């Protein structure tokens, strides 16, 4: 579905979605102010912003980093802040583009748990792109297998991994296919 070109209508729909890029850009400001950005952009009052940001940082275990300059964080910390910043305004849809690429296992685990938690506790629908089949199996409810930009197969995670309809899907999830 394409977004309408009408500026305000487009902004209204865009504001229900949040996107985290593979290479995150955090603003040269405190972690706290980074997380508050989306709320301020939506005109939340100062009191609401304070309450929501403090609560969210507590929830996702980033409270200790609140005062840190965001551009001094490690890659894993930065990605967690980016996700927190993206969900601060309770979007209905969260789009993640390879959020754990180039991260160490500990941070991957932390981020996957954060994604599960956001999905469970805040009922945010998460669409996530990953090249890591194991990661898809670990956290997804539904899997869409895309090859060369085309959807090959989609379905519940267990079915895709144990009983795929497509031969290419089977080879890929078994780690035998070379693309």
């Amino acid at each position, binding site marked *: 579905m394409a977004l309408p070109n009408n500026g305000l209508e487009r902004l209204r729909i*865009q504001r229900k979605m949040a996107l985290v890029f593979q290479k995150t850009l955090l603003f*040269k400001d405190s972690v706290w102010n980074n997380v508050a950005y989306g709320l301020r952009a939506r005109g939340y009052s100062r009191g609401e912003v304070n309450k929501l940001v403090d609560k969210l940082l507590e929830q996702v275990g980033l409270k200790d980093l609140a005062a840190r300059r965001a551009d001094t964080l490690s890659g894993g910390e930065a990605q967690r802040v980016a996700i927190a910043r993206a969900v601060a305004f309770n979007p209905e849809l969260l789009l993640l583009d390879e959020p754990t690429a180039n991260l160490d296992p500990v941070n991957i685990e932390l981020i996957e748990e954060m994604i599960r938690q956001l999905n469970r506790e805040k009922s945010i629908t998460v669409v996530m792109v990953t090249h890591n089949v194991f990661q898809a199996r670990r956290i997804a409810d539904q899997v869409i297998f895309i090859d060369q930009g085309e959807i090959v197969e989609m379905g519940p995670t267990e079915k895709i991994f144990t009983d795929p309809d497509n031969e290419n899907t089977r080879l890929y999830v078994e780690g035998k296919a070379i693309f």
Partner: protein
Amino acid sequence: MSRTFEGIIEAFRLILAFDADLLQIVFLSLQVSVTAILLSTLLGVPLGTLLALKPEKKTRLINKVIFTFMGMPPVVGGLIIYLLLSRMGPLGVLGLLYSPTAMIIAQIFLATPIITGLTMVGVRAKGEKIEETARSLGAGSALAAWTVVKESRFGIFGAIITGFSRVVAEVGAVMIVGGNIAGHTRVMTTAIVLETRKGNFELAIGLGIILLIISFVVNSMLYNIQKGGRSY
């Protein structure tokens, strides 16, 4: 040699005695250049940001024009403003020639391309990515643009300071449009030219020292800003 030495001694005496002529000249210099830079900043920063966020293909010609104007010799800039403001020129009726206002206009003409061009370079480095991020977080056009400016602040401060150090030290344009009138349009650089020609080295050396001190302060700021920009 002893004459130079005496000149330096006398220059320090003038500076330390807060000599009225010297103070007036320094004050006018700063007044003209600071005003010009404030106005150039208001013009150049938004324009540079806007150009940096447009696809480079669309702005290629205007970029070249701006870069050319960045290297405009001050005397040529002064000549152009002179022709505009002189009695027979299109803005002659305003009667601005040989006034501090004319000098401010000439310096705006020199500094705006510098601030615009360097802002553009500073913003272009990451501007698109910053705008994209701001928009993905729900910012409208105005907030997204403001965020780009804020995030590119090191480059933009650098642009402003470079513009200032250029205009405060230039002599050609203010000489042509200001006329170096004592007590009215005489600034540090034009006074140095005049006093040197008269063989009156004390005041010239004193002003030279003050210009160097201003240059040192301004460039220290620039250095710190750029160091700050790198370490993050």
